[in-house]
């Protein structure tokens, strides 16, 4: 029977696990005995409770101290050991630093863009509504204001819907005239998103009505730039496009869906002036509690179907689709790029770990004797394991710190390389989540690369060490061999992925935009409505400006257009062949449209296929139109000559075709050129037009003279967004270029590490088999036979890795497919070429160390035995 005063020491013994193993082994039993003795000697329940409390607090106080003391002892030992093998330590630290640095840089990108929540209240409930027209493959279109109002009134899946559209404005009155990006919003948008103004308030519902919209909010950036952070700006009047607006609030610069807007104006829709075919409003909505994305989508489909029946002319065929806000802000392609990059860099980290594990295994064999001696002197296996893991941790920590330094440098470089307009990179940097991640991967890598080698090394015993100094070895080590196969497989996957992206990039850069971007300068002009209230006023401005610009020395031609090609902006309308809806010839089609002045096509260098470009003598009554070849094929698939034919638009207007031009890739080099119609600038002018000039010399040198020319006509008129067309075309491929460049760097590193891995295994095999090889040579084997035998070991591993890698790349290719342009993810040419190249690299990696085998002096080697 148990003595009722005898304590159950199991709990105390469990507490002892907080101590380092060697302390526990040394004193644990006695400590338990002492605790038990004291407990039994206690005279009262209170005394026993006190003894238990003292025991508990004693352990909690002393155990961490012992742990720290053992750790510091291990760290000192580790530093001494690592300093004794500087080449190993340097190689391991550099490998780790590169891998951890690269992983940290890519993670910080991923965190800034995808993992960080949008600055909205419950951002996961915010969705973007895109209008769609399935038959024409239109999936990401804006809505018309009447449709937006209909959604507000009829859709049941949202608590609220808000809309916005952007335009350029000119600020006057306070100092120099200034160009600013403005976003025109429905009054409920800011409260719906849950964004708090930094100063003042958001718009009131009554300010969102025609005639009551003389209010504005400004961004933090403009607040600082133009108003010197003077809080008194709230309540003051500023002039936007010549109209007076009272500033009611200051909004954060980063609004989640917009970082460029500096002025915010109320939408104040006038439904009497809007029509359902005029799509220009971006719509956001907050899902109603209880509604899933699918539920809200189903309900919106119902609304679209109703509208299609009620307004067949404008809404027939149109639908709407919901996209989670983050998917809209960051975009599917960019998200895929980020996941591909983080996976690639993760694979690189694995290759680096495998490489260091291989180095450690080699080192572990060399340290077997040391381990055996320490065991013989009484060190437990757990103690040795802990010591080795601490060494790995020290190595990983040094590598991690160096990696963080590299990451800081890399991030600074990346910020310069990121294409203009890359979303959500304002917070890119080594902030606390990124540092925590770096810390976590540092620990994880130390376990990944170090656990198996440490485990194997701690298994050595004195006997095994003694046995080791015996005869010959096969040089085989299954763990090392598996690591090498894994390394080669991963390197193959990365190299194949990079090769596919490189090919895709090359084809993208070779793709013809449909115009000649060289020697063209573009700049935007935004005419304020206050100063240019009618089309005639605006037309008069451009009538004076264009001859002035054309007369500038070095300008060969000039024109204006409603949009810059490849800018990503678009406008589209339905169009059908024939003079009107009463003509039954054709069903309507959706086509992009642009307004261009005479001279614009010549300036851009668009190819004239038939007919003519616009001329100064064209009048608005003639309603001339130039169409793209693609649109001509769609409207007249039977081959009818489009020249002199008529088309009618969704808004009822009829135009006469005067020319057919080559297709232009307005939506970007990677996109198919849209069917496009070009209207004469005498028909209509937008508040913001793009001035384009072709120059005989450096186009950028023309920026100053252009500004002067504009000022000579209107001194208050700024010229903004001045860029060369070549820059715009290059920016279109900037993202794929950066993505491919990063992938190439990761793949190259992985390949070098993989080749080093193969090479290391062969060299290790040669070193371990030197006596056997010497014996074979002594028995008459030729150097070629010996070298061949050594190379076969490494070569077969490399081949196996290559095969696994090629098979994996085939399976993983589909993840890349959305990033590829005119290249198949299983492109046989790429697979064969890369397979052959990697085979040569692998054989080289085996050949270099295998030469050592033939240099073995049989007599000397056997004498050593």
């Amino acid at each position, binding site marked *: 029977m148990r003595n009722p005063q005898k304590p159950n020491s199991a709990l105390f013994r469990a507490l002892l696990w907080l101590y380092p193993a060697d302390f526990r082994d040394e004193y644990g039993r*006695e400590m338990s*005995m002492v*605790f038990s003795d004291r407990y039994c000697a206690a005279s009262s329940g209170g005394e026993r409770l006190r003894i238990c409390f003292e025991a508990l607090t004693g*352990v909690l*106080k002393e155990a961490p101290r*012992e742990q720290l003391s053992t750790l510091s002892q291990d760290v000192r030992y580790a530093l001494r050991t690592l300093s004794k093998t500087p080449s190993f330590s340097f190689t391991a630290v550099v490998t780790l630093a590169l891998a951890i640095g690269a992983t940290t840089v890519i993670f910080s990108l991923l965190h800034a863009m995808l993992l960080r929540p949008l600055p909205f209240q419950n951002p996961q409930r915010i969705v973007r509504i895109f209008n769609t027209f399935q038959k024409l493959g239109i999936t990401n279109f804006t809505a018309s204001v009447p449709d937006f109002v209909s959604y507000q009134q009829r859709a049941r899946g949202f608590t609220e819907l808000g809309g916005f559209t952007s335009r350029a404005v000119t600020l006057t009155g306070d100092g120099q005239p200034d160009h600013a990006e403005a976003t025109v919003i429905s009054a409920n948008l800011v409260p719906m998103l849950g964004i708090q103004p930094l100063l003042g308030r958001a718009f009131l519902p009554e300010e969102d009505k025609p005639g009551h919209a003389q209010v504005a909010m400004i961004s933090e950036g403009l607040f600082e730039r133009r108003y010197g952070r003077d809080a008194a700006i709230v309540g003051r009047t500023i002039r936007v496009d010549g109209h007076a607006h009272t500033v009611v609030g200051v909004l954060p610069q980063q609004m989640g869906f917009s970082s460029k807007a500096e002025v915010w104006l109320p939408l104040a829709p006038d439904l009497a002036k809007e029509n359902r075919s005029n799509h220009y409003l971006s719509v956001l909505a907050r899902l109603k509690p209880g509604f899933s994305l699918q539920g809200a989508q189903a309900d919106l489909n119902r609304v679209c179907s109703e509208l299609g029946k009620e307004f067949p002319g404008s809404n027939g065929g149109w639908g709407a689709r919901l996209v989670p806000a983050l998917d809209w802000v960051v975009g599917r392609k960019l998200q895929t790029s980020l996941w591909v990059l983080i996976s690639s860099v993760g694979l690189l980290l694995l290759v680096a770990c495998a490489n260091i594990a291989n180095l450690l295994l080699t080192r572990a064999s060399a340290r077997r004797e040391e381990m055996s001696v320490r065991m013989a002197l009484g060190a437990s296996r757990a103690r040795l394991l802990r010591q080795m893991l601490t060494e790995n941790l020290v190595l990983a920590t040094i590598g991690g710190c160096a990696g963080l330094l590299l990451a800081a440098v890399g991030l600074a470089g990346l910020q310069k390389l990121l294409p203009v307009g890359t979303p959500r990179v304002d917070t890119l940097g080594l902030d606390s989540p990124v540092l925590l991640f770096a810390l976590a991967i540092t620990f994880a890598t130390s376990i990944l690369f170090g656990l198996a080698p440490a485990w194997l090394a701690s298994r050595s015993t004195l006997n095994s060490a003694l046995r080791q100094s015996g005869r010959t070895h096969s040089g085989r080590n299954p763990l090392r061999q598996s690591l090498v196969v894994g390394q080669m497989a991963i390197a193959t996957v990365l190299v194949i992925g990079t090769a596919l992206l490189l090919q895709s990039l090359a084809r993208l850069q070779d793709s013809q935009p449909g115009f000649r971007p060289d020697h063209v300068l573009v700049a935007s002009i935004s005419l304020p409505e206050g100063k240019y209230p009618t089309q005639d006023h605006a037309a008069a401005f451009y009538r004076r400006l264009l001859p002035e610009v054309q007369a500038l020395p070095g300008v060969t031609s000039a024109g204006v257009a409603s949009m810059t090609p490849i800018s990503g902006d678009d406008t589209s309308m339905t169009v059908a062949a024939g003079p009107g809806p009463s003509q039954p010839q054709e069903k309507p089609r959706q086509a992009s449209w642009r307004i261009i002045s005479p001279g614009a096509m010549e300036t851009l260098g668009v190819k004239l296929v038939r007919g003519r470009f616009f001329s100064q003598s064209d009048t608005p009554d003639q309603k001339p139109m130039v169409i793209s070849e693609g649109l001509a094929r769609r409207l007249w698939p039977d081959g009818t000559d489009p020249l002199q034919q008529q088309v009618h638009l969704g808004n009822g207007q009829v135009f006469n075709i005067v020319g057919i031009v080559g297709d232009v890739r307005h939506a970007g080099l990677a996109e198919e050129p849209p069917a496009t119609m070009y209207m004469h600038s005498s028909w209509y002018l937008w508040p913001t037009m793009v001035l384009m000039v072709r120059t005989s010399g450096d186009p950028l040198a023309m920026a100053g003279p252009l500004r002067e020319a504009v000022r000579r006509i209107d001194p208050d008129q700024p010229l903004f967004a001045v860029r060369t067309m070549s820059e715009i075309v290059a920016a279109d491929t900037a993202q794929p270029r950066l993505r491919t460049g990063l992938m190439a760097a990761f793949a190259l590193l992985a390949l070098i590490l993989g080749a080093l891995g193969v090479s290391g295994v062969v060299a290790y095999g040669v070193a371990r088999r030197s006596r056997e090889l010497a014996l074979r040579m002594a028995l008459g084997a030729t150097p070629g036979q010996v070298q061949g035998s050594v190379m076969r070991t490494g070569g077969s591993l490399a081949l196996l890795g290559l095969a696994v890698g090629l098979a994996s790349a085939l399976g993983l290719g589909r993840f890349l497919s959305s990033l590829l342009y005119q290249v198949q993810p299983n492109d046989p040419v790429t697979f064969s070429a890369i397979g052959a190249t990697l085979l040569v690299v692998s054989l080289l990696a085996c050949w270099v160390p295998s030469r050592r085998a033939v240099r073995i002096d049989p007599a000397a080697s056997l004498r050593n035995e």
Partner: protein
Amino acid sequence: MEYRADSFLPLHKDTFHILVSLADRDRHGYSIMQDVQQRTAGKLRLSPSTLYAAIKRLLEQGLIEELAERPDADHDDERRRYYRLTELGREVAQAEARRMEQLLADARACGLLPQEA
């Protein structure tokens, strides 16, 4: 390595009491604990953790040593380990006692404590 006794001073009070406890005889852990508790009239109670952390340090510093044989083998638990003061440990304990004595003398000279009769 040669250590000067003074280099260990001042001693932590737990350490000093353990050395004092081992000054007159060799003891095992529990015996040290009991002795300290009795001598300080229960004012200093060493927990098993404090005691063995101190023992580990004293062993590493060479102030105490573990005995190969138990002095009282017939009447004791054979699993207990006994400790003895080393020569250096004795010198250190003496140096600490002298330091405390000097402190006491200083306190008396300043009138903080009454003069000895």
